[in-house]
């Protein structure tokens, strides 16, 4: 049957955010050669407008819930929620990049085009109802990230970050692909809901096909690498440290959210009936991730690298909510992810500004006395760090609270105890930076530079968002709960 034009139009509405992002990316590429070097900054603003338009078109897509393109794409409250978080993170990262690129002499249209394409890939990832589609989305986001990580071509750490990320990332996607092939071999479908139907329809006496379990394992390896959970985290600190700081802000936030979304779909929806098989995998991975992230961050004297380790630790906290594998757990994970994105992007953007040209000032000692010199910036940074640490009044606190609460409800007490111990370890290295800012003697060689308007706007939004989630969480929590419910509607439970 030939699809009617009306149906085509409907399909197009459902992938509107991706279409908008790709169109803006292509327009930037086409315009780029005609723009003088001095005017390239305008391309950044164009990219920002593109991201905002995409955010608006998420609203459009939300009006047409349902499946599109022969069930390959799924527009539900879950995908809408993830879309907003991902595109929001990308917009903040673009705002933070404008002046950074200017200072580094890297102001190019390609940068913004790649950011938009990466975001489009993450959008596909968030809405994919089929594994091959998800794979394409994952690759779109990954390949753009490899290039963005190496964008400071004259800096060795940036090159190292790009090559490491590329080589290990390619292996990870190969694992993911292998996993898809095996799951397909076992169940005869790559549709996420189709796999679920197949596995649920198996008679209770029959075991799950070994090939499907093996495939799920490989998918966990591939996705675990992208969300940076142990034992696949080894590359992350180097990549986060070497990549240009605004890129790190993007890499540490948006792809994690999108990949976690796919992970939830695959584990919770497709393999929901095999929960007894993957529960302990998630449990062990969560414990390892938290300890490696926190203990690693403890040893760092470089703030950027420390924040890199801390983002590993946070993936572990999100896995705690994941392990609960209840509606509440998923809602908690989504809430945590939105709070995490705001505080992490905010923290990295502060590092972007304070790093100065060539990213020279990254050590904790360089932050000494910042509280006196730039009180507003220091206050913002403290807020993000308190939120990462999980102190009340911030989004990070409630994120942790809901995550641990949902795990306790699911009777996973020991995991919560371990997560609590880890939060205490985290306090040490976050507070050390804050103490340096307020109580250490300011270093003499540093003259503070004013924060550029675009960057301050991004910081303001991130700070306001962190406080909003900490003080008035109800609205976002309700949305997260609705998103989780739309996922569990699929999982027939």
């Amino acid at each position: 049957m030939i699809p009617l034009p009306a149906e085509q139009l409907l399909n197009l509405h459902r992938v509107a955010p991706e279409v908008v992002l790709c169109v803006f990316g292509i327009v930037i590429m086409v315009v780029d050669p005609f723009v003088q070097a001095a005017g390239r900054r305008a391309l950044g603003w164009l990219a920002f407008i593109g991201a905002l338009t995409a955010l608006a078109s998420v609203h459009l897509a939300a009006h047409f819930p349902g499946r599109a393109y022969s069930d390959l794409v799924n527009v539900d409250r879950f995908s809408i929620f993830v879309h907003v978080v991902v595109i929001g993170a990308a917009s903040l990262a673009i705002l933070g990049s404008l002046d950074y690129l200017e200072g580094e002499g890297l102001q190019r249209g390609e940068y913004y085009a790649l950011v938009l394409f990466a975001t489009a890939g993450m959008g596909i990832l968030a809405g994919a109802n089929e594994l091959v589609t998800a794979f394409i989305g994952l690759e779109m986001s990954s390949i753009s990230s490899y290039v963005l990580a190496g964008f400071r071509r004259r800096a060795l750490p940036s090159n190292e970050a790009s090559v490491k990320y590329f080589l290990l990332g390619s292996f990870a996607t190969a694992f993911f692909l292998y996993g898809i092939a095996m799951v397909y071999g076992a169940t005869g479908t790559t549709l996420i809901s189709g796999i679920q139907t197949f596995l649920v329809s198996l008679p209770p006496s029959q075991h799950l096909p070994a090939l499907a379990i093996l495939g799920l394992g490989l998918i966990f390896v591939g996705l675990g690498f992208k969300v940076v959970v142990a034992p696949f985290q080894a590359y992350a600190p180097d990549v986060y440290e070497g990549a240009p700081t605004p890129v790190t802000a993007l890499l540490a936030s948006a792809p994690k959210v999108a990949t976690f979304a796919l992970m939830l779909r695959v584990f919770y929806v497709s393999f929901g009936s095999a929960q007894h098989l993957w529960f302990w995998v998630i449990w062990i991975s969560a414990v390892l991730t938290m300890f490696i992230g926190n203990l690693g961050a403890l040893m760092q004297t470089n703030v950027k690298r420390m924040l890199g380790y801390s983002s590993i630790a946070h993936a572990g906290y999100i896995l705690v909510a994941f392990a609960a594998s209840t509606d509440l757990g998923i809602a908690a994970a989504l809430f945590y992810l939105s709070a995490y994105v705001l505080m992490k992007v905010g923290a990295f953007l502060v590092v972007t500004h304070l790093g100065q040209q060539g990213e020279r000032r990254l050590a904790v000692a360089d932050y000494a006395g910042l509280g006196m010199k730039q009180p507003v910036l220091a206050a913002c940074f403290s807020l993000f760090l308190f939120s990462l640490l999980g102190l009340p009044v911030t989004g990070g606190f409630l994120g942790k609270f809901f995550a641990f609460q949902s795990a306790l409800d699911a009777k996973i007490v020991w995991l919560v105890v371990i997560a609590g111990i880890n939060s205490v370890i985290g306090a040490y290295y976050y507070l050390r930076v804050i103490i340096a800012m307020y109580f250490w003697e300011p270093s003499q060689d540093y003259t503070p530079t004013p924060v550029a308007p675009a960057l301050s706007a991004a910081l303001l939004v991130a700070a306001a968002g962190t406080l909003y989630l900490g003080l008035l969480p109800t609205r976002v929590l309700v949305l997260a709960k609705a998103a989780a419910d739309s996922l569990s509607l699929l999982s027939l439970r």
Partner: protein
Amino acid sequence: MSIPLIVFFACALLAVAGAVTLILAREPVHSALALIVVMLSLAILYLLLGSDFIAAVQILVYGGAIMVLFVYVIMLLNAGAEERTDFSKLAKFAGVPLGFFLLLWTAHWLAHSPAGRAAGTGGAARHGVSTIDLSLLIFRKYLFPFEATSILILVAILGALVLARKSE
């Protein structure tokens, strides 16, 4: 002897001859040319089996794109005639007999097992996927990932350009 059978034997012999030349030639460019012969005769063999799409892809992708890549690499490396070394002992005493064993075993399998016979006479291909089925899958069912792939390739090209171009 029917015409398809004649074509089959001609192409099969050509493929084997090409493969042997590929290994024995001392100039890398000659090896590359021999590889083209192998690819093209394989394409005709696919055509005989009724897989017209695979045949076209074989010519376009392997005979075209990948061969260009090979020739390009040879050109960039400026590779001259290769140096001859003595056969490795392992290859001589274990590799050659094992190769012959594999050949005989495959021939035996093709001739005597039912599955082998079906494969040998192209039975599998006849019930296989036609170009129409394939294009329906790509342009209907998997239209969205197919279109997304075009962006993916664009990203790859853009990325290569960003990383490889001269600094300003």
